[in-house]
């Protein structure tokens, strides 16, 4: 099993001259799960975006290492999975097409039809995998986001509001995913829900 470590040092972010958060630092390694908590507007989602590499910090840096070796910006894409409310998939493609198309675009990725179908089955979308995403409910779209995030078996899984729009059955599958990820990699989730935060071994208050 790979030893993945994510080190966040002195991270600060500002929007329009307003400081969202400053001097955030923590380290997390394989086998650990971290809950990011804080008030609305405290910057939890912004921090998740920075960790996933889609936003650049104002100050500080984020370093990923696998077995002690630092991995570069392009390789990080194949090491991270993200589920969040602001992440959207393509409405004009079916659920299965979304996974295959995005997998083929992913740098260093490859098309894994069998794995894609298995994940859609796990998230209860097997019967609707050939339907256009345009016709999915918000809960089904959230399930599809999980299949997309897990398709490349990421070492680091980032979840922002992990159970939004999900029913009880969907929440239970997510709970299983969280348990598995804690065994094989790193898990970070941003939430205001006390139950979800309790899934994690550690907490970090974003202020």
């Amino acid at each position, binding site marked *: 099993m790979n030893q993945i470590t994510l080190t966040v040092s002195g991270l600060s972010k500002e929007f329009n001259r307003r400081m969202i958060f400053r001097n955030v630092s923590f380290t997390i390694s394989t086998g650990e799960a971290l809950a990011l908590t804080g008030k609305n507007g405290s910057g939890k989602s912004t921090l998740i975006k920075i960790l996933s590499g889609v936003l650049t910090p104002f100050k500080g840096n984020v370093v990923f290492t696998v077995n002690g070796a630092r991995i570069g910006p392009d390789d990080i*894409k194949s090491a991270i999975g993200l589920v969040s409310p602001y992440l959207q998939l*393509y*409405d*004009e*493609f079916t659920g299965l097409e979304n996974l295959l*198309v995005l997998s083929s675009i*992913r*740098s260093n990725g490859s098309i894994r039809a069998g794995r894609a179908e298995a994940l859609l089955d796990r998230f209860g979308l097997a019967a609707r995998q050939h339907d256009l995403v345009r016709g999915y409910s918000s809960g089904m779209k959230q399930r599809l986001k999980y299949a997309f995030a897990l398709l490349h078996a990421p070492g680091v899984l980032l979840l922002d509001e992990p159970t939004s729009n999900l029913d009880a059955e969907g929440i239970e599958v997510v709970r299983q995913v969280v348990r598995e990820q804690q065994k094989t990699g790193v898990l970070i989730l941003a939430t205001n829900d006390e139950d979800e935060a309790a899934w994690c071994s550690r907490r970090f208050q974003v202020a």
Partner: protein
Amino acid sequence: MSAFSSTVALFSKDVRSELRTRYALNALLMFVVTAVATILFALRSDVPSPTVLSGMYWVVVFFTAMSSLSRIFVSEEERGTTMTLQLVASPSTVYFGKLFFNTALTVSLTLAVTVLYTLVFSEFFIIRTASIFFVTVFLGSLGFASAATILAAIVAKANTRGTLYPVLSFPILIVLLMTVMNATARALEGEAFSEAMGDFQILVGYILAMTGGSYMLFDYVWKD
């Protein structure tokens, strides 16, 4: 998988997406038909000179391209899929994938305008030096696509997308427009291929400068 394969996969995704949503194709086809029909009615029985004809040809291409090429990034922004692409592809993959798509769209557009012009203005739109014409159309399309792609990426992040795109495009494309109009007039007048070499050199220089500059700038435009 190599960066080239990822770029081809992104291009393929955009083609399939376009064929299903018709974000750009419908606007493009409607604009071409409307513009050519308007020119046809305006000309009546007048016979325009090759210079005027080539000018009208590229005016149609310019405004049609402006109405459709920006969609490549604006549609990602409007659908909220920009972040999804940022998660799976490097900036260079996105830039070249979108550039290939805009090039294919512009080449299709110029060919469609050429066919329409040949059918509608069959009496006076006669391509006497085909080699000059087709090299101009190819290089012109590449030039349009290279400028339009980076402008589309910039404009997609702005609030006033509709008006900003043509306003920004005109000063950047003026050199390209003047050169392609000049070369097209040569093709319609029947000049020798060697006479257009100066125009082709300008076009190649423009494409290289625009693509190289855009590649270096794209990382900053795409990320935040």
